């Protein structure tokens, strides 16, 4: 499977996503420059973490205007899998591919540490190999990870089973402890934790592999059909 890792000016987890998918998971990956619309035949798109455009104005607010995002939007509309981690999640929200917004952490400070997540749905290409309520240890590293949306939107997310992950011990004040959500088509995943940082036993946890492996299996299934 071939991953396309978007590089915005200020992306700084782009190489980690590339390393995780190629070296730790044995897949292919290509960097996609923000100023291009060429997805280079990628089967899945990763919007990596970092500080795209310095996070000026608001996190992700400028990145959503990048030419590559037009191509990503079309790719998602056609059902292609898109994953946004951390800053990538913020960009997906700004781009309207996911609902809601990410505000400053409740404690007003940047937080970097491994956290416990609970799997909230297994009904998605990113979570199909997980068990319901399974716990994963995956790091967070963000200053603006407090997920917020209108109550009606949150209710709808729950009604549609589109909450992918919840924090076991909410670190940032996110509404309903939401750590990651899915699009209505279930093919776009946004999450604040960094699964690409949990794919190598040397780094402590390999729970992030379960998310990538779910997608790789889902892809193998569709491409065999």
């Amino acid at each position, binding site marked *: 499977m071939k991953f396309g890792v978007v590089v915005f*000016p*200020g992306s*700084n*987890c782009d*190489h*980690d996503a590339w*390393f*995780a998918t190629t070296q730790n998971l044995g897949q292919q990956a290509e960097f996609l420059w923000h100023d291009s619309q060429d997805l280079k035949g990628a089967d899945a798109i990763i919007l990596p*973490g*970092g*500080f795209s*455009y*310095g*996070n*000026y104005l608001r996190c992700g607010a400028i990145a959503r205007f990048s030419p590559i995002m037009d191509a990503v939007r079309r790719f998602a509309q056609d059902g292609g899998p898109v994953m946004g981690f951390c800053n990538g999640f913020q960009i997906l929200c700004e781009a309207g591919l996911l609902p809601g917004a990410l505000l400053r952490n409740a404690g007003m*400070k*940047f*937080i*970097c*540490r491994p956290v416990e997540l609970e799997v909230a749905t297994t009904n998605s290409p990113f979570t199909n190999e997980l068990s319901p309520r399974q716990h994963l240890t995956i*790091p967070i*590293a963000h*200053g603006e990870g407090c997920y917020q949306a209108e109550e009606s939107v949150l209710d709808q997310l729950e009604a549609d089973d589109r909450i992918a992950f919840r924090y076991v011990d909410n670190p940032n004040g996110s509404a309903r402890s939401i750590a990651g959500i899915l699009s209505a088509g279930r093919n776009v995943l946004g999450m604040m934790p*960094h699964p*690409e*940082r949990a794919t*190598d*036993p*040397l*780094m402590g946890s390999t729970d992030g592999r379960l998310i990538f492996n779910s997608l790789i299996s889902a892809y193998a299934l569709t491409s065999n059909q």
Partner: protein
Amino acid sequence: MSLTLQEVSAHRLTWSEYEKILSLLGREPTFTELGIFGVMWSEHCSYKSSRIHLRKLPTRSKLVLVGPGENAGIIDIGDNVAIAFKIESHNHPSFIEPFQGAATGVGGILRDIFTMGARPIAVMDALRFGKLDNSETGQRNKRIVQGVVSGISHYGNCFGVPTVGGECVFESCYDGNPLVNVFALGVFKHDEIFFGRATGVGNPVIYVGAKTGRDGIHGASMASEEFSEESKDKRPNVQVGDPFMEKLLLEACLEVMKTGAVVGIQDMGAAGLTCSTCEMGSRAGTGVEIDLKDVPQRETGMTPYEIMLSESQERMLLVAEKGREQEVFDVFHKWGLDAAVVGVVTDDGMLRVRNHGEIVAELSNRALADEAPLYDRPYTKPHRTVPMHSPAFSSTDLTGDLTRLLASSDVCSKSWIWDQYDWMVRTNTTLGPGSDAAIVRIKETDSSIAMSLDGNGRYCYLDPREGAKLIVAECCRNLSTSGALPIAATNNLNFGNPERPEIMAQLVEAIEGIAEACTFFETPITGGNVSLYNETLGEAIYPTPVMGIVGLLKTAAPVPMQFVEPGRDIVLLGGLGASDETHFGGTQYAKVILDTLWGLPPQLDMDYEKRVQAAMREIAQAGFAESAHDLSDGGLAVALAEASFRGVGAHVNLETSLRPELALFHEGPSRILVSTASPGQVREIAAKHGVVADVIGKTVKDQLTIGPWVDCSIAQLQRPWKTALEEALH
């Protein structure tokens, strides 16, 4: 026009230095030239008070590819891969404006690394602040801590370099003079190394990165004076950092270096355009001619003086091969950055600065960079006012003492700080903050780099020479505890006013101590930084040399610091050691429990220390250490508690003639706690190295007992340790 004494001294030049300028030039300098001399001959840029003593430091080994004098030292780590690393201070700016002062400290040292072609992969910080509970200055100190930590967090996190560790100490002497020392380390291949040299007469000199503004003018000379009441007014001298710009600059610089069009490159740090032009020319033996009208500027009406002395951040100067300018422009424009030809390399050895064609400064590069005055300042005996003899003390509650020590500012958990640092980005950190050493694996090889920062102002105040040796030993021991072989060092020398002979004596003694220990432990110094005039209202800081030492190890899961399984034997490698009241006066126990300072630092036997470390590395490499933690602040009892904080404690019995306070809390070096399932093998290796290795007890669940004096649950010790810093900051 004739320059006045006031104008000369406003540039922090003495009259005799001015006379030297007159004789070098054979004429009066222009105002711009005076400004250029003022920064280049400042203590910060010229090391004029320390240079003759810095020559005593060892700088060579088989692994040293580049020693002091370049932007960073470079060490060969095998497999055609090298590392560049250095430490630098941003003390004065961090007091005046903590957030930007610390942030630009990180930015400056990162540029030193990537200007050589290396990609930064780790940052560490050694921080020292005034006490938070001081009734007069506590509130201000809290704001400084919060500002400095968020400044480091802001810059490093956005840039995308992990901040993997460091140290944080609170002491009254840093009340008006916090220390912010930032260490950075980068990695590259041998053929990717670049130097700050303006070679090739006729080659274009190209300015890249952020535009020049009026910020930071006189930063270097500000960093070379004592603080007074007027220092608060110096806020415009502090630069403003933009880590996003720096990230773009990093990527663009590394990309442009790959084109082959670049012949030399240097960052614009202290003294900005002035320092980069004359140093690049001086190193290459060439001249550099620039016209300021071509310098990208973000403010209008800037004078030549202001442009030359600006310390605007995120700027670089590079020399390209003539005819290949466009290749350079293409890369920088891709990253959305300014790039402009501002001058040319000449053959006359002069720095010639024009403004719209008119010459505003014309000086010899060598005079600026290499002929700065050199002072052999007089020194007497190191300043100290504390007694040699111990006060009478006797504890009635040793468990209580241990709890207080664990909750004290220097010993307590610093997770409030490092939680704010992205210490994992780049997915290389195998051992992060809070460990004895930080470890970062090198993806290009099958090896890892271990690094440790350490300082101890109290030890050095009591005896600068012995204190400095203890710091080197401690840093090396931190590395060895993780299984790494110490290979090279950088140092940051933070001292008071060198014009006071008793302060100069501290500096000389500390340098000689570092020289002796670094020679003995085979860790040459490849570069560093000297920060003098750390005084406020005539009160100097403790002499505070900070060492940063790096080590090499094969990549493997690192030996953790904390006990893993109950029922293991606990070996005190190196033995309980000797101490007496005199050598107890610099300990954390003396500071926290007795609130005083006396006597001498702990005694170090360097030969024994080296053998303990060799034994430790062999034990780690053979896989016999399930956990390992070196003894330092707070001695054995604190080390046992820290090793217990994953929930597996210890049941220890000490057989000693030492009085209990000393047995539990003395800080003698050369000691490492090892938990092991193979005590026989551990003792065998230790015996081979001639090292004591007593089995002092066993690991147990949930409890820490140090018979017959300490007995309590781990939770009771851990809670105050964990929460103390956050509570102190509120």
